[in-house]
């Protein structure tokens, strides 16, 4: 008798960013290899339970609906994530979901970022458009939109500085303060952050100028600037309110100031 079915090889790995392990299942060995390479330093042994488990299905280019912007919606306890290059669903109560995506690093990267923002929002944390680094056991964040200088200041970091990211900072509350974690989410530097963490000692809003100096800003400006740089995609009133309150908590606990810098290494003399 002919055998009409064959055993499908199930492959899996866990990507842990910010102490949140996410298991990704696939049947494609090349895709697994891409993930192992893309998230080197963030792939952990698969002994423990993952916070979320995703089954992935690779979709050929052009087969997914042409949605320009990402859409993140929750209905009946199930999150739906859609963009031109991926579609995903995830049920937090079951800690499981699926992703149909192009086999490209930027597609899985986008899904992971969104999932982390959703989980963090419930836990009082957030992802921020900011470079971050550790010096003398303390983490410093450098926030700003594109071209503000995140990559530049990362590139100028002296050898005693541990780079956490040049693009997307990962922030969680801990005790009376906040902790920054390394992330694999890179910007122009295209270099993964170190997978380590440290208490946040300060957040600097970046501005390029002709000299290096730190200026105080009002609490209101700090809150507005922070909210402007928080990554959040979901159309969800409850989570928007959480993010809003979290931003004010952060402003009340972490010193925030403006860092004007001339692009040379001397700026790091101010960061200690």
């Amino acid at each position: 008798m002919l055998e009409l079915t064959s055993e499908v090889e199930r492959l899996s790995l866990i990507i842990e960013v910010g102490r949140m392990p996410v298991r990704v299942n696939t049947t494609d060995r090349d895709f697994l290899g891409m993930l192992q390479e893309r998230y080197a330093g963030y792939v952990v042994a698969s002994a423990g339970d993952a916070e979320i488990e995703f089954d992935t299905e690779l979709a050929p280019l052009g087969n997914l609906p042409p949605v320009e912007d990402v859409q993140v919606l929750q209905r009946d306890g199930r999150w739906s994530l859609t963009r031109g290059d991926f579609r995903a669903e995830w049920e937090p109560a079951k800690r499981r979901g699926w992703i149909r995506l192009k086999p490209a690093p930027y597609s899985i990267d986008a899904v992971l970022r969104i999932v982390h923002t959703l989980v963090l929002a419930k836990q009082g944390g957030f992802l921020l458009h900011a470079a971050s680094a550790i010096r003398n056991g303390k983490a410093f964040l450098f926030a700003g939109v594109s071209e503000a200088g995140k990559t530049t200041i990362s590139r100028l970091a002296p050898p005693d500085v541990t780079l956490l990211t040049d693009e997307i900072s990962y922030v969680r509350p801990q005790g009376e303060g906040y902790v920054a974690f390394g992330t694999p989410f890179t910007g122009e530097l295209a270099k993964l952050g170190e997978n380590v963490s440290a208490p946040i000692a300060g957040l600097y809003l970046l501005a390029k100028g002709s000299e290096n100096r730190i200026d105080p800003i009002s609490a209101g400006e700090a809150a507005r600037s922070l909210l402007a740089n928080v990554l959040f995609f979901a159309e969800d009133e409850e989570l928007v309110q959480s993010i809003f309150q979290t931003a004010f908590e952060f402003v009340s606990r972490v010193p925030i100031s403006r860092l004007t810098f001339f692009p040379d290494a001397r700026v790091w003399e101010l960061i200690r």
Partner: protein
Amino acid sequence: MSNLYVARNPRVAARSLDGEMMIMSGSDSTLFTLNKTATIIWQSADGATPLEQIVRQKICTEYQVEASEALRDAESVARNLASHGILQISEQPILHGAAK
């Protein structure tokens, strides 16, 4: 002269920081920073107090301004905030969260 009632939309997030009132729309994440007059209107918008009374008792006493002019400005502010869904306005008292 109209007799508007105004009520805060309970579905928006609001915080005052060093005298600045900031409000974020829950539906589209737009952030608003209110000026002093708008802040007074927002803080007084209980749905039961007419806007005219808020203006007379809390704005005219604070600023040297004609009551009619202040009310005109206040109505404009209230309608603007309502257009963004962060304030509810009605010609009848507003039961909390009931008015659209």
